[in-house]
């Protein structure tokens, strides 16, 4: 009993390392600083930028046509005379929103699925993970395209479809970790003491899974944004007049030889976002890596 108590204390100490110290050590990495600054900058620009712009992202001015960047239209205008800056920012809202919502869906499915498979074990586990293997063998983009074809094209369906295919990796990670944690002495002790399963899962297992979940979620956001952009680029995603970075890059790619700015600005925002999120994800992984 004393031993169990000791182990519990050690675990508690581990998880309760004071938050400010943790943040300081995270931001000691240049990647973390650059990534966070860049991403926050883009996020704030997309969220609040449109409030300060007089142009509308949807009303067209056909007589204006595609204009090169100027003082009035910093990023120029598209072929329908719409201001590209505001369209890029609105598109960013959509892309980032889908990125986060689909990640939430993926995390919810992946964590619960993986925890159940790992905790119950035996045949249930084998069956559940075999299913993951099967779906894993399929190309994600194709499934998402299939789902958007079958279910119609709407924002909610897009992020549900993406979330529904991105959870697999997390389910594998969580299942592996859960199996390890399940055999720990303090979990056995909790079981012997009659703690119900859902409490063991939430108190003793989920809490120890937080760091891999955070790392994975951060790295999922850019891959979701990428997937959504591919689908919108192919014209199967977000529909006009709404825009996402993928659909804007598509418009730009069709006329890049005459109006290069239509391609360059959305691509720049998209690439910098992916870059910054990868920086943050890598830095978080190093930060939580116990072998360091």
């Amino acid at each position, binding site marked *: 009993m004393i031993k169990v108590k000791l182990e519990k204390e050690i675990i508690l100490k581990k998880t309760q390392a004071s938050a400010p110290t943790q943040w300081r050590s995270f931001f000691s990495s240049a990647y973390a600083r650059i990534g966070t600054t860049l991403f926050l900058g883009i996020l704030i620009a997309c969220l609040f930028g449109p409030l300060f712009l007089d142009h509308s992202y949807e009303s067209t001015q056909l007589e204006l046509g595609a204009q090169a960047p100027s003082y009035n239209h910093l990023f120029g205008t598209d072929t329908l005379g719409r201001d590209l800056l505001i369209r890029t920012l609105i598109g960013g809202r959509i892309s980032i929103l889908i990125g986060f919502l689909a990640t939430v869906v993926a995390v919810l499915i992946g964590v619960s699925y993986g925890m159940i498979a790992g905790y119950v074990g035996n045949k249930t586990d084998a069956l559940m993970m075999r299913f993951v*293997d*099967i779906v894993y*063998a*399929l*190309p*994600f*983009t*194709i499934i998402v*395209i*299939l789902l*958007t*074809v*079958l279910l119609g094209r709407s924002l909610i369906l897009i992020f549900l479809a993406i979330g529904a295919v991105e959870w697999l990796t997390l389910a594998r990670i969580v299942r592996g970790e859960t199996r390890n944690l399940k055999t720990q002495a303090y979990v056995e002790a909790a079981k012997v003491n009659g703690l119900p399963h859902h409490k063991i899962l939430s108190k003793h297992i989920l809490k120890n899974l937080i760091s891999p979940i955070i790392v994975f979620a951060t790295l999922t956001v850019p891959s979701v944004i*990428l997937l959504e*952009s*591919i689908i919108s*680029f*192919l*014209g*199967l995603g977000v529909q006009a007049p709404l825009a996402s970075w*993928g659909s804007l*890059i*598509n418009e*730009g*790619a069709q006329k*890049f*030889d005459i109006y*290069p700015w239509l*391609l360059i600005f959305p*691509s720049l925002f*998209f*690439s*910098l976002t*992916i*870059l910054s999120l*990868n920086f943050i994800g890598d830095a978080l992984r190093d930060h939580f890596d116990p072998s360091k």
Partner: protein
Amino acid sequence: MAQLILRRLFQTIPTLWLIATATFILLQLIPGGPFDQEKPVTPEVKRLIEAHYGMDKPIHEQYLQFLLNRLQGDFGPSYKYAGWDVDEIIAQSFPISLELGFYALLVALFVGVPLGILAAIYHGKRMETLFMGLALIGICLPAFVLGPLLLLVFSTELGWFNTFGWNTPSDRVLPALTLGLFYAAFVARLTRSGTLDVLKNPYIQTARAKGLKEHRIILVHTLKVALSPVVSYLGPAVAGMISGSFVVETLFFIPGLGSFFVNSAFNRDDTMVMGTVLFYAALILLFNLIVDLLHAWMNPRTQRD
């Protein structure tokens, strides 16, 4: 080895069956038949069409027929390209996609692996930052960003390549780079960390102590083991290249299977979509099998799991 192949084949068959069944169920569930048109057809015509496509039989017979046909490589008629079978379209367009994928894979490996090895050799020095910086740039330039940019620079501005088509050998360059460089970046990162891990081993120190040349250590003693994460990555990479080929083929107007798939998704050509999905799934399963075998050959220890 033979046991491994057999075991993996036994895992693959049920997977394919599940996917085939799922596509069959999806085809049945889709609201509105494929022949719903603006103008309603007379019941007589409708009955004839349904009889022609075997849709008037009971559902379990249709299912059995469906499985039998797929087993024989018959994917049924395309609903939109009248007179064409899905397998004929696949047979005609897939070789083009395969060629594109092959070049892209070459780009990914021949750019990624040397970059990763160089970064590992220069570990802790400035050069490493440079090489890995290049790899990072690659990661945030997926096909639909890189493709138009390459076109803008090399065909519009410099005029070195055609903007579209798949006729001359030089038409292969930009599409292959567009598709391959993104994966080269991942390959470089994996090669670097794999090489660094191996270089830590005592047998490398022994080799060094015995006075072996550094390039020999890398090429002979390190590479085979260090590349095993890269080999594992080839499975997902090829799956990714298939979806990447949708973008590249659309962008460069290449008549490969990818552009047919995207078009059929647009046109609601349901048999074509399902047939292509099934085909891609089989392809990816086959490729994963090859990757697993390659892996087992490179790392004999993994066979024991």
